[in-house]
């Protein structure tokens, strides 16, 4: 797909995000907006997957796990726009009886979601497990994950990081949304991650860095990561993003981590985001 087409999808995804969060009057717009470009490129360009016939087992497909489940709006929008479920269903986000729960779950059988997430730090372990099963099944597709940077403060992440390197889980590409913000403020102030690249290297991972809003870089780095699979090491991409990217008053502030825009703020945001594929 051409970059312009992907950018058009991402613009619509961003509109979906702010409309969904505003419609529910709750949710997490900041991190969702920041990961819109990445997830669009992943689902519309990089992954082999089957939106028309979702199967939990995903045999011979690439799999994706969202570990930082609170950015469910961006994932739901990308899944719907990719064809996993009707686009109109985005209007049910966080509403009673909806399949689109506040945080992703398998409980109501929403196509595209294979694991509940929200309580942080668990997705890397889940992904390693799925990657191990792919190896046992001689399935040579890849398992992708996305994590928040604040999420890396959870100890389980490092248990999983140690396991994957020690056991050569090399069909795994983890991405860190390195936006530097978490609920209480800057990650640097809340609990610094220190030398993040050095930490992953010391744990035995291949480490790549990427600008999460540059399409040429997303293409180049994700393709490079793909070529590095199967070489005995898990791969992590530290992806620099801006929380709130695309909406000027949200950019770069932790204040929009988990706050819904009101009606006026929604209009102000929508003016900045072109409707490319039609709103739900």
């Amino acid at each position: 797909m051409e970059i312009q087409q992907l950018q058009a999808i991402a613009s619509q995804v961003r509109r979906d995000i702010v409309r969904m969060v505003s419609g529910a009057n709750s949710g997490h717009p900041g991190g969702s907006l920041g990961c819109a470009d990445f997830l669009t490129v992943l689902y519309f360009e990089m992954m082999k997957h089957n939106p028309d016939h979702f199967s939990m087992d995903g045999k011979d497909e690439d799999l994706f796990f969202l570990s930082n489940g609170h950015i469910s709006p961006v994932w739901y929008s990308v899944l719907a726009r990719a064809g996993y479920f009707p686009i109109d269903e985005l209007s049910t986000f966080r509403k009673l009886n909806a399949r689109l729960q506040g945080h992703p779950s398998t409980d109501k059988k929403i196509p595209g979601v294979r694991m509940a997430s929200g309580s942080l730090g668990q997705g890397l372990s889940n992904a390693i497990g799925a990657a191990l099963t792919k190896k046992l099944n001689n399935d040579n597709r890849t398992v992708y994950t996305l994590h928040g940077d604040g999420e890396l403060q959870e100890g389980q992440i490092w248990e999983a990081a140690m396991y994957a390197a020690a056991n050569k889980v090399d069909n795994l590409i983890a991405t860190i949304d390195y936006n530097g913000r978490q609920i209480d403020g800057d990650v640097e102030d809340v609990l610094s991650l220190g030398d993040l690249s050095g930490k992953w290297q010391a744990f035995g991972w291949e480490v790549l860095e990427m600008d999460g809003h540059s399409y040429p870089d997303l293409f180049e780095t994700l393709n490079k990561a793909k070529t590095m699979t199967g070489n005995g090491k898990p791969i992590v991409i530290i992806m620099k993003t801006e929380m709130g990217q695309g909406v000027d008053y949200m950019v770069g502030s932790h204040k929009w981590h988990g706050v819904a825009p009101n009606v006026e703020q929604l209009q102000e945001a929508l003016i900045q985001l072109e409707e490319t594929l039609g709103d739900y």
Partner: protein
Amino acid sequence: MKQFEILGKKDTRSGFGEGLLEIGRQNPDVVALCADLTGSLKMDAFLKEFPDRFFQAGIAEANMIGMAAGMTIGGKIPYTGTFANFSTGRVYDQIRQSVAYSQKNVKICASHAGLTLGEDGATHQILEDIGMMRMLPHMTVIVPCDFNQTKQATMAIADHKGPVYLRFGRPVVPIFIQPDAKFTIGKADILIEGTDVTIIACGHLVWKSIEAAQQLAEQGISAEVINMHTIKPLDEKAILDSVGKTKCVVTAEEHMLNGGLGDAVAQVLSRHMPLPQEYVGVNDTFGESGTPDELMVKYGLDTPNIVEAVKKVLKRK
């Protein structure tokens, strides 16, 4: 009264080890994960025969549970093995989100449960695990009573699609269930029929309940003994049929009174058939170091405690 022959003596964890090996031979989708306790869990035989299907997680239980949940995607049936404390309390949130809420086909196999872990003391003697696990929606909770039943249960849970908590223990205890007995999840075993009182027990307390029934019979008291190996889903019919006949019940478990088998039974009775119940279990206290036998006596989980509870409940009829 039906007499039980002691067929031998073994630890229930060895029943798990044998069952895992056997189900591994029968079902190629079965895989095993362990957090640095392969020998204690008796998983060595599986590891030796199926090294490619065994995953050593190291001392990292949260990651082990998370990986097990992920391994179900693609059709594997993961059995995780570690002590009951590290199988539940340490990883409650991982089980809650990645296994129970996500309805993953993970078998959480927990050894060294309860006081009979012995000398290591209260840090390792979990007495709350049945309660934690039975509170989780979608979770099946099984506490088999001897070596043979633990082996049977270990194999049976592979055919049950969904999360399972399987609890067993460390000490060598009598074997009294026949090796070819059929194990059905959710169907209680009526081990001894009686008319005066119902004793409902699980795990190590089942044999002690048989002993208690024998002593009571000598005193002219007819006790019915039910082995409630599945705490969830609970065999409510077996409880109501029996207590409907005997009009009183004693529950016995190597677990905290709060949240355990006794609570589960009381919930059934209070809804359908409120009748006197007495409890044998640990009453809101941690354990301590000691031999398993010493601890069972000190914390009131021995055969005389069951006899005493029966006499108490009979007076309340």
